[in-house]
């Protein structure tokens, strides 16, 4: 709609689009109306009432996030009464919120704190009793602290509207309202996929990651251990934001250097094992194509997707690649191949994965992923956690001299880099599968149709006359939509990439919080993070996983060839249906 109308804001006339809300119109006219429950990617809740404005002729204040503009509308955003009302509303939130800002995980990075300051709350008028609930510490990945919850409902909407998981809902009434999983079950026993998107959108610390920083500091201080780190692709694309850097700056060298300064003995790159994943996954795909195996084959890198699939689409288990995630592949090699190389007892190695993700904390303790009876990944640390550790240890991250990864698990191709963005795994896999299948090198390697942030992206490529159709979905809600398409038309796609988080790993649940002037999961921020990875791919002279000399060496020295017995033992896994309370268990064949 390009119809324009005239509205008045605080006595000044503006021409605005007719199909906007008051908030959108005001934003475009240079008025940032304070807000809390509003999020542009979620449905309109209208719950917090912080964004109220006065409209001439209306008895009550209206929530500007929800109310449409109309021609001739006279809007006031900053009257004395309105300022007092907004102030009182935010005070009411504070009055039922713990007064522990200085010991809170989100101190200095809390939307409520910022809002309270902006509203000018310097004194409490209405303080009374506060709610008190136990923290839910049951999950491997996400801590739920209802005391800090201000019931904006962003997590509930994120979990249902974007992720399609519906693990959270408000329960009880009035002052006793609390956000919880179904039946007030512990998070660990709920349908929660541990993706951590609730943390990303939470304005306070009602959801935070399970923090492992103190354990890690303890291990790093233990001289008897060999401390080995690996860094996920998207960590380097976002960690700078934790230090106030604009999104989109690749901080790979600084991160490697900082990890060494923290006390790691070896710093490896998950991008190396991403290349390895491509070798295995592309081979598996071609095997399925040639031997008429189950298609479409679906990627298995995303841990939240793994849990989601086992719960909601157990009938698709046979479609899912048996490849472990790059993190778990690297960890398996660290405790076998690498331990042999340095002639160390693998039990003395602490394998720490620095990830953009909270679900990787869940993945790490999946028993299927153990290697020789050992947990392969001992600890998963999210981007936010490592940023804090670096600060806490007094390391001058921004001015540090860049360093390189260690060998042998430190070298990667551009294909491994783009794993961090939605579509990247597919793009990388095609670069390799094409060559493995046709014997020719794919020249036009940037597959634009599966780049970008559309919910479901599709493309096709011809390999020796065979048309291979691929589809990519990011965010579990889109994954759900794609699975429904596949169930209806099993033959439509041959190869499918699913990432549990919006944007892929760059939008992971463990990434730095949105800056004060930004919003969580802002598309521009995701684009900048993606570009940090794509530009690294472009800069790399090696852009195909099979061209990575360290990967080639690994096969030569240790694994033999893709899908070998050794590969299957160390790099592949299996899945089983899983039905938390609240899901109707379906009779599906266990694979």
């Amino acid at each position, binding site marked *: 709609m390009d119809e324009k109308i005239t509205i008045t804001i605080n006595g000044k006339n503006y021409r605005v689009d007719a199909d906007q809300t008051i908030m959108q119109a005001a934003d475009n006219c240079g008025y940032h109306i304070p807000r809390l429950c509003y999020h542009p990617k979620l449905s309109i809740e209208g719950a917090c009432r912080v964004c109220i404005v006065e409209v001439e002729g209306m008895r009550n204040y209206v929530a500007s996030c929800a109310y449409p503009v109309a021609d001739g509308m006279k809007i006031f955003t900053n009257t004395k009464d309105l300022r007092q009302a907004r102030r009182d509303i935010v005070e009411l*939130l504070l009055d039922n919120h713990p007064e522990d800002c200085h010991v809170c995980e989100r101190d200095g990075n809390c939307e409520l704190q910022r809002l309270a300051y902006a509203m000018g709350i310097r004194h409490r008028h209405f303080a009374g009793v506060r709610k008190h609930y136990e923290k839910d510490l049951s999950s491997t990945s996400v801590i739920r602290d209802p005391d800090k919850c201000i019931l904006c409902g962003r997590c509930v909407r994120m979990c249902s509207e974007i992720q399609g998981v519906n693990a959270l809902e408000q329960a*009880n009434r009035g002052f006793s*309202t609390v956000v919880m999983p179904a039946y007030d079950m512990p998070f660990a026993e709920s349908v929660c996929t541990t993706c951590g998107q609730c943390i990303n959108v939470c304005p306070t610390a009602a959801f935070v990651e399970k923090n492992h920083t103190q354990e890690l500091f303890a291990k790093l201080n233990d001289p008897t251990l060999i401390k080995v780190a690996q860094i996920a692709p998207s960590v380097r694309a976002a960690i700078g934001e934790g230090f106030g850097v604009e999104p989109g700056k690749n901080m790979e060298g600084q991160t490697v250097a900082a990890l060494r300064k923290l006390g790691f003995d070896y710093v490896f790159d998950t991008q190396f094992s991403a290349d390895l994943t491509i070798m295995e996954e592309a081979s598996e795909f071609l095997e399925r194509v040639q031997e008429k195996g189950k298609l479409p084959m679906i990627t298995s890198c995303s841990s939240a997707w793994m849990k989601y699939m086992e719960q909601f689409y157990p009938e698709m288990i046979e479609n899912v690649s048996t490849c472990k995630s790059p993190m778990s592949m690297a960890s398996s090699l660290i405790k076998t191949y690498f331990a042999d190389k340095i002639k160390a007892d693998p039990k003395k190695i602490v394998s720490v994965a620095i990830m953009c993700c909270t679900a990787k904390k869940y993945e790490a303790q999946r028993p299927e992923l153990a290697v020789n009876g050992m947990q392969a990944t001992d600890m998963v640390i999210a981007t936010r956690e490592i940023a804090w550790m670096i600060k806490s240890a007094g390391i001058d991250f921004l001015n540090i001299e860049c360093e390189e990864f260690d060998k042998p698990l430190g070298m990667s191709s551009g294909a491994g880099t783009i794993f961090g963005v939605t579509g990247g795994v597919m793009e990388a896999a095609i670069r390799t599968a094409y060559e493995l299948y046709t014997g020719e090198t794919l020249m036009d390697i940037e597959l634009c149709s599966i780049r970008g942030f559309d919910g479901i992206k599709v493309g096709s490529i011809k390999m020796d006359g065979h048309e291979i159709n691929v589809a990519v979905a990011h965010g579990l809600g889109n994954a759900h939509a794609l699975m429904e398409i596949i169930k209806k038309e099993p033959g439509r796609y041959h190869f499918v990439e699913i990432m549990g988080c919006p944007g892929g790993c760059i939008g992971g649940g463990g990434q730095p919080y949105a800056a004060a002037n930004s919003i969580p999961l802002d598309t521009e921020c995701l684009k900048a993070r993606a570009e940090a990875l794509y530009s690294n791919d472009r800069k790399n002279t090696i852009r195909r996983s099979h061209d990575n000399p360290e990967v080639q060496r690994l096969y030569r020295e240790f694994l033999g060839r893709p899908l070998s017995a050794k590969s299957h033992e160390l790099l592949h896994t299996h899945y089983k249906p899983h039905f938390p309370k609240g899901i109707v268990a379906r009779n599906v064949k266990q694979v």
Partner: protein
Amino acid sequence: MAKEFSITLCDGTGCIQKDSGEIRSALDSELAQRGLADNVRVNLSGCLGMCEKGPVVVINPGYTIYGSVTAGDIPEIVEQHIVKGRPLARLAVQEDHLYNRFFRIFGDTKFFGKQMRIALRNCGIIDPENIDDYLALRGYEALAKVLTDMTPKQVIEEVKTSGLRGRGGAGFPTGLKWQLTAGAESTKRPENNEKYVICNADEGDPGAFMDRSAIEGDPHTVIEGMIIGGYAIGAKQGFVYIRAEYPLAVSRLEKAIADAKEHNLLGNNILGSDFSFDISIRLGAGAFVCGEETALIRSIEGGRGMPRPRPPYPSVEGLFGKPTLINNVETWANIPVVVLDGGRWFSTVGTEKSKGTKVFALAGNVVNTGLIEVPMGTTLREIIYDIGGGIPDGKEFKAVQTGGPSGGCLPAEYLDTPIDYESLAKAGSIMGSGGMIVINQDACMVDIAKYFLEFTQNESCGKCTPCREGTKRMLEILTKITDGQGQPCDIDKLERLGNMIKKASLCGLGQAAPNPVLSTIKNFRQEYEEHVKDRRCRSGVCKKLLAYEITDKCVGCMACKKACPVGAITGTAKNRHVIDQKKCVKCGACFDKCKFNAISKA
């Protein structure tokens, strides 16, 4: 027909002159011929007074009057009315409106005299579980008229002409709502242009039973109204959202729906027309907020009953995202009357802006508590003193609370306020869905405000901040005041919070929740100040503000001393006793025990 009928033939001089004798013999032979003589009692009466219409025949039950009857009409009357159970419209004297039937039976008592029953016209008269009873009183005739003689547009025009406004409380013009819903185009999934009709029977006000009684007494009128609404807006499916705590109303509604289906009044091709409509029942789980239309819709959809911001209004985006016509039980019950008696007639009842009648559940300190229906414009005084019979036990009137927990308390100076949407709002209360509680001198207005706020605070859905957090703080302050801990600034705080909650809350529940507090502060501010400044509750309701003292009437009988559970009373026989105020827990045991009226409460 196993049913008993009585047929009364007017045997006054006028009718005799018009050959009523022939009618008698024709009737006797017709009944005998059909073997109905045992089922029908035929009797003669003196002059009924309708000599102009003579000869007059009255058939009961139902008080159907046939005028200008000839002997030749008798077979048809017997066939239609006695055998088939449907009054013969051709000969029936129709100049009476539907509502009048009630007053032929009950109208001359004091309780009913000032009432006018339109929505409740059949309640107490028909057997609600027998569709024939409803049919006999012109039931579903409005539906038949609509389906045969009226276009949907004409139906909407009729409702607009009537001036009927929503009886759920807000008073939105019903005809306009119908027109908006009829004209709305589905924005979500436009390929499916379904629309829905909903009856809001989620009556949650404490002490209110208007909707329950209406459905229990006459479920078919609600169903008939909904079908007409469905026809007017082009819907095929209706829902009645009713509280599960109303099992009798639910079972009667279920039976009525089944009976209506059996009679082809619901289902496919109603009465042979090409209009099809069905009604399902959805049970609410007892959340007050589900009376709010968007919360109710969410609940039907299977979600947690929480309101959402409007616009879009349900008329544009309602149930399952489709245009939805949602009206309250009482509104629906008025529809058949609007159609049959006409919008023009309906608009003659009531005031300029509020047409028709309003049902109230009259409760509290009033002699005749119960369900009443009065024309708009009736004053509070008429309701309380004429219909309600005044305040019992010789006590004084103090306030009347209208609109349930969302309404306000009006003191004696507002007793001559006429009942209509605007006047009540102007006085500082609301029409609401029809709760009316009379309060006598014994009540403490701070305590009353606290009671209502406690209810809304508990029933807040918890979605929006002002209602969820704000009502809790208001309640805390009120509790402080009634506990004798209040500060002078607390009254200002109540007003500040109350006004903010009123203007900033998401839905009607929050927007109205402060009303009982704000209206009592406005009208009874002195009582608040006494609580805060003098630590005194003039009604003696707020226990913690009480001080029991032993006066010089004390004879030293020691009964109070023995009764005191905490040993706060000291004294020796035949000497005046003393209460230690620090130990006293204000239980009142001494006061009850004293036979000499020697203990004062202050």
